[in-house]
């Protein structure tokens, strides 16, 4: 019999430390598949976040640079500007991208930096023990919103991807999830499209993945997937938020040569 699915080559041997059912594991696996399929293994640079995914460099076998919490989009800007023909992507969580990193994210998108941001939205700060995130839902209980997030006190969950979609520099933004096989396949397609748009030099690309965090949501993995499908997608609807990848004029590279 022929092997029709193998563990991706670009996943290092180390077992991933994520909790059972965590979305990070699925997306990391997808990225490994995609980079291999697109032949970009020797031309990719990843900038992971501070957060559960800080150890991404132990899993993906590509050049990887740590960044301070929230600063991945600034670090990626520096890398991509110096090496414009490499495939550069950040891999960030809610706090990294939409709290402490808000300015760096928005301005990188506004400048149309040619890198991709993969945004893992699990509505909570996972690594630090389940505190409220900018994307925590109203009424959702976390360790720093023990009575449930209230609009009056904490404000509503921030629609960061919708905010970025307003900017001309952002050319492709899609929100997906990983709660079913078709959802996972869709996420893979979306990330591949984002990487392709980057290599076509079109502008800033963003894929937001609604991702289960069973441990901090205090649910089992299957229930977490259900919660995403029933609750999270009400606030963060799936779909394409922006797509200017076809027929988009090839923008002039910002650097002088």
């Amino acid at each position, binding site marked *: 019999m022929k092997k029709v699915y193998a563990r991706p080559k670009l996943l290092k041997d180390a077992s991933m430390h994520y909790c059972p059912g965590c979305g990070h594991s699925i997306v990391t696996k997808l990225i490994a598949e995609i980079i291999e399929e697109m032949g970009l293994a020797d031309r990719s640079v990843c900038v992971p976040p501070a957060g559960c995914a800080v150890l991404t460099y132990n899993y993906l076998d590509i050049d990887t640079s740590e960044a301070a919490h929230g600063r991945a989009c*600034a670090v990626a*800007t520096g*890398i991509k*500007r*110096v090496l414009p023909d490499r495939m550069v992507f950040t891999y960030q969580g809610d706090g990294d991208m939409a709290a402490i990193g808000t*300015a760096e994210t928005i301005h990188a998108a506004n400048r149309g930096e040619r890198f991709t941001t993969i945004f893992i939205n699990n509505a909570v700060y996972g690594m630090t023990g389940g505190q409220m995130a900018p994307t925590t839902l109203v009424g959702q209980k976390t360790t720093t919103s023990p009575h449930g997030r209230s609009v009056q006190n904490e404000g509503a969950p921030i629609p960061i991807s919708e905010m970025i979609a307003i900017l001309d520099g952002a050319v492709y933004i899609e929100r997906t999830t990983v709660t079913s096989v078709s959802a996972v396949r869709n996420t893979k397609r979306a990330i591949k499209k984002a990487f392709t748009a980057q290599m076509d030099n079109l502008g800033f690309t963003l894929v937001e993945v609604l991702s289960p965090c069973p441990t901090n949501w205090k649910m089992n993995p299957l229930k977490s997937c259900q919660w995403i499908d029933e609750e999270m997608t009400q606030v963060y609807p799936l779909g394409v938020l922006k797509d200017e990848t076809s027929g988009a004029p090839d923008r002039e590279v910002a650097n002088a040569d």
Partner: protein
Amino acid sequence: MSQKSNYKLMRGNTVVGEAAVQAGCTCYFGYPITPQNQLPEYMSRRLTEVKDGIFIQSESELSAINMVLGASVAGARVMTSSSSPGISLKQEGISFLCGCELPAVIVNMVRGGPGLGNISPAQSDYFQATRGGGHGDYRVVVLAPASCQEIADLTMEAFDIADYYRNPVLILADGMLGQMMEPVTFENYTPRQIPEKDYVLDGAKGRPSRINLSLILNPQQMEDHNWKLMRKYKTIERNETRYEEFMMDDAKLAVVAYGTAARIAKGAVKRARSDGMKVGLIRPITLWPFPSDIIRKRASKTDLFFVFEMSAGQMVDDVRLALEGRSEVYFHGRPGGIIPTPVEVLRIISRQYYQKELGE
């Protein structure tokens, strides 16, 4: 053709920029803040003339230092600049650069503080510069120019030092040095031999993938890493310490000052000498590593070390530490952006000299 024709009259801030370009800097990221704005403005024009030149006015000083980290790990010579409050914002990034062992040049045109302060020249960021400034056990090489020519020479050297040791270098100047105009040549400096950059992240083509990190969860490995950094800093102390002595041969009173304060002090020392006082000047050029050895050495003949800073007293601590009680220390400072005159400093030197009967 006389050598003078290679000199141009330039403003300190602009000198930094041109020197950086001459040294092969292709990236500049920064944010406007008085009194250094001529530098990003110059770089925004000058880098369009440089192959692979990259200029970004970043959204904050914080994102600038992180763009610096990215460009550095991608293999480029990169610089950022700011003034005191903006350098405070960069401290996290500087700690990361040191932990990751990445080269970069950071320029601080110091202004009055603390807080929003004012835009006058000051020397109140000495602690911030020399004591790390951010979190963790690390050091940044700190260079203190005292003239536009020295800005040119030290800026060019800063890139070599940064690359050679894989460590950030901070140029600590002030608003006056940044604004003054003096004739400058960029032909003084001879570049060093730099080892190959085997840490660059440019896509793992034909080699195993690399990781750039400063996160070391295992405490033993972290301790080992820290001692490795400390050994590097010891090497820098041995090789890179620099200072200037002026009229120190028979000095009974040594003024210790750097940067703009040293220029003022030099004027005071010259006047003191013509008044018959045996006074000299030790001018640290590297603030880290601090020239403790020469201060300790001079203590055998010098009875009083007169530390003069445009601050409430920061470098004076290093002078005391260097002396370890071998000689007396007197501090005179003007914080908040005041620029004293040589005559004022001379008055205080004279008072000390005669009160302590140093002439006997």
